[in-house]
């Protein structure tokens, strides 16, 4: 294993890249990355999945949230090497692929609710916020408002004041229980 590192203000990487085999949004991918590179950077730079954002780089804001083997994690804290063999979902993988050729992907109920209810302003927190909400609903399809707040507590937003974000998630929960998911949710 390469082990020569020079001290620097920003931690340097070992000098040799490795191949990291994983599955991203349902597709097998081999990432070429320095072992200790942040998965956040590798996802943005290699497969060009720039939906995942850097907010703080310290795991405190949730803008970089992805799902790693079904668990919500902050990708700025995951070394690339630890993605080996993992199933990764980013924001780009949340909308369902539409089976009709050339048709737009089918938005998840959470994404549709954000659009309908104004859950985004500048949008920088939005991918992480949606991942957190989708992850929550996968684990707990009928969360209380307190559970929604708790599930999203790791995602900071500087624009909206959070109210419309929670309303969007509540609306998505209601829409998911009354089919079809793209219908106007009842208030």
């Amino acid at each position, binding site marked *: 294993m390469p082990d020569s590192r020079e001290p620097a203000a920003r931690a340097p990487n070992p000098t040799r890249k490795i191949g990291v085999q994983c599955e991203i949004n349902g597709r097998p991918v081999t990432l070429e990355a320095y072992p200790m590179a*942040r998965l956040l950077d590798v996802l943005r730079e290699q497969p060009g999945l720039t939906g995942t954002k850097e907010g703080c780089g310290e795991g405190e804001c949730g803008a970089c949230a992805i799902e790693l083997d079904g668990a919500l994690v902050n990708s700025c804290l995951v*070394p690339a090497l*630890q993605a080996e063999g993992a199933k990764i979902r980013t924001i780009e993988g949340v909308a369902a692929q539409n089976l009709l050729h050339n048709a737009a992907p089918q938005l998840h109920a959470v994404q549709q609710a954000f659009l309908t209810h104004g859950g985004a302003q500048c949008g920088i927190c939005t991918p992480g916020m949606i991942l957190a909400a989708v992850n929550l609903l996968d684990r707990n399809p009928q969360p209380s408002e307190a559970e929604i707040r708790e*599930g999203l507590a790791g995602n900071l937003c500087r624009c909206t004041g959070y109210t419309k974000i929670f309303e969007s998630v509540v609306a998505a929960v209601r829409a998911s229980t009354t089919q079809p998911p793209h219908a106007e949710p009842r208030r």
Partner: protein
Amino acid sequence: MEMPRDLSAALERLAQEPGAWKPFAGGTDLMVLLEAGKLPHRRFLRIWKLPELRGIEVTPEHVTLGALTTYTDVRSSEVLSREFPLLCRAAAETGSVATQNRGTLGGNIANASPAADSPPALLVYDAELELVSANGSRWVPYHGFWTGYKQTGLRANELIRRIRLPRTTQSWRHYYRKVGTRRAQAISKVCLAAAARIDAMRIADVRIALGSVAPTVLRATETENILRGEKLTPATLRAAQEVLAREIAPIDDMRSTARYRRRVAQNLLAEFCEMLSA
């Protein structure tokens, strides 16, 4: 980063070059340090997948947690929420869901921040740690494991393997409060964990631990001595609060002031006693 195939391979590595390899699990502390250029280590030993460090074992006398138990694991454990609720409270208030999925108790203990959320609960529950090396293993009480600010008795060739909790406090009353700027994603200004056994209106036994008020998380043993055996009266509480103020050593820092911390610690003690009287 090297990935040893099992625990003994990992311990071999640590034995060959103690201090050169940094054990790396979920990375929630180490990645922050690495990116800030504050990790002197050049080589990382990935212990995240070692099965010998995982799992929650229940025996009649103990609940024993593998060092790689994550906060999410703690929160989903039925036996822990029934018998060690303070640990579950601490886990629920650590970081966020994303942090809890990756952060581990062993990492929290090894990182030894005085502001850590789980150590006060572990101290209240009289936790013991199993430390392993290529030479063997030893059990040590968690109380006293801290040797100074961010320093512990963990030797350079050792890993924390398990955390053992004696099942002796189920009937006790438990209290936990973390005071911070937010309900999540906050480092505490003050944190107090406590448990007491009440017998015929007296505090038959009590354990109190605090975070963020000293260079280490600490058991307030002198405060405990004031309360032990006593009936809870306003005078007893005031006496205990006075001792607590002297027993802790809070400082001014970017999160809070010594004065605030001292006062809030006393308030948390009062709230604990109020709960006991109810």
